[in-house]
């Protein structure tokens, strides 16, 4: 186990304890604790897709495949956390808004961002050659990043059911200090987890590319030593 993975496990445990021991919200009670998963997941979606953008630009400039692998790995982890943000948002929305889903700008645009990066992953899978894949997905990774500011500012630009930014806003955060502390712990823990997952996925992608380029498909595999019984020839 790598040090970053041990750090991820430790910070996740600390964040879990912090999320459970801080007092409940004055209005929503314990239901609000879902925020400690929902907000960090949404933050990771932004972070992961921003890293995909930076790595895509870096790949186009340097033509180094490790940047392409970072872009792909980050997008993959980002899609998982966007899905988690959507799912926890729906679970939170049902008791608060009375519906699982509503045609709110933030919700629709987050779902659109989820589909954009699913398309990005589909594009990655559709090309085998790492060099061609790298260039095509880098272009798409840059265009896809158009969604990120749109999702973040949607609650300001449109009349929205979703609340406006509480922490990342001009002026003081609109949240009590103990709750803010638990939230920041969760954000740190999720970020460390993101780094650990992405690094592991980058290594896996490098191994996949090595397998593709070294062409070891003709080597014997398990079971190759077993020969079929010889057919009896006529005397």
């Amino acid at each position, binding site marked *: 186990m790598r040090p970053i993975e041990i750090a991820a496990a430790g910070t996740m445990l600390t964040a879990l304890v912090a999320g459970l021991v801080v007092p409940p919200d004055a209005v929503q009670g314990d239901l609000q604790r879902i925020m400690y998963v929902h907000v960090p997941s949404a933050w990771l979606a932004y972070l992961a897709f921003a890293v995909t953008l930076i790595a895509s630009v870096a790949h*186009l400039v340097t033509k180094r495949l490790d940047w392409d692998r970072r872009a792909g790995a980050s997008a993959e982890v980002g899609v998982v956390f966007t899905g988690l943000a959507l799912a926890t948002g729906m679970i939170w929305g049902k008791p608060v808004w009375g519906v699982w889903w509503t045609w709110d*700008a933030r919700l*629709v*645009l987050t779902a*659109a*961002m989820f*589909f*954009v990066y699913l*398309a990005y992953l*589909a*594009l990655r899978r*559709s*090309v*085998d*050659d790492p*060099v*061609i894949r790298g*260039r*095509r*997905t*880098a*272009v*798409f990774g*840059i*265009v*896809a990043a*158009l*969604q990120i500011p*749109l999702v973040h500012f949607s609650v300001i630009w449109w009349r929205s059911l979703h609340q406006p930014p509480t922490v990342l806003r001009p002026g003081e955060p609109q949240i009590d200090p103990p709750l803010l502390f638990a939230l920041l712990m969760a954000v740190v823990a999720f970020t460390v987890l993101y780094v650990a997952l992405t690094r592991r996925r980058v290594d896996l992608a490098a191994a996949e590319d090595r397998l593709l380029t070294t062409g070891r498909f003709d080597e014997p595999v398990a079971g190759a030593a077993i020969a079929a019984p010889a057919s009896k020839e006529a005397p």
Partner: protein
Amino acid sequence: MTIWRQIAILFRLQLRDEMRTGEVTAVVVPFGAIALLVIPMAVGIETTLLSRIGPGLFWAVVLLFGIVVTQRRTAAASPAHRDALSLLGVDPAARFAATALASAILLLGFEIATGLAMIVLYDPVVVGWGWLAMVLPLVALGLGMLGTVAGSVADGRGPLAPLLVAPLAIPILLGAAQASEGLRLGVGILRWVLVLALVDVVLALVGVLTARPLEGTSS
């Protein structure tokens, strides 16, 4: 030969191809009109509601059928075609610009034809023709560029291109729908026009700057 001359020649050839095949004018435009005709059957004959939601449905049809326009056969370049253009010294950025412009012109025609069909069928309140004269070309240009980039990225993988375009076109769809809603309510729509213009500028930069890296990635 300057890049502008290359763009002009390729643009003219693409439109001539379309005139010969009639892929957009004879197939996609009637199909879009049929979609506008069929949708009320799902909504019912409540004419007030149809008049209210008509412009929104129009933009949804423009987005979905606009993808078909940008992925038309005449916009696709085979690897042999691309190699020939490269050997002739045609700049990949010129090829992107010409294809995107041709798609935008065809999309504008599609918007006007289906827009007229929407007005006839749904009878919406249409105001601010001057603003609409800015919004329609901006939407056409944005979809044209997005479709051209997606076509290059997907490179012949037919079902993949619509999946790449549709969610990415949401900023364009939102800008257009909010602009027409703003016109109906009589509020300022300058910021939505600016959003559309900004998206177009970003797409133009991405298209031109990535045309060369995408060149030679056919598989």
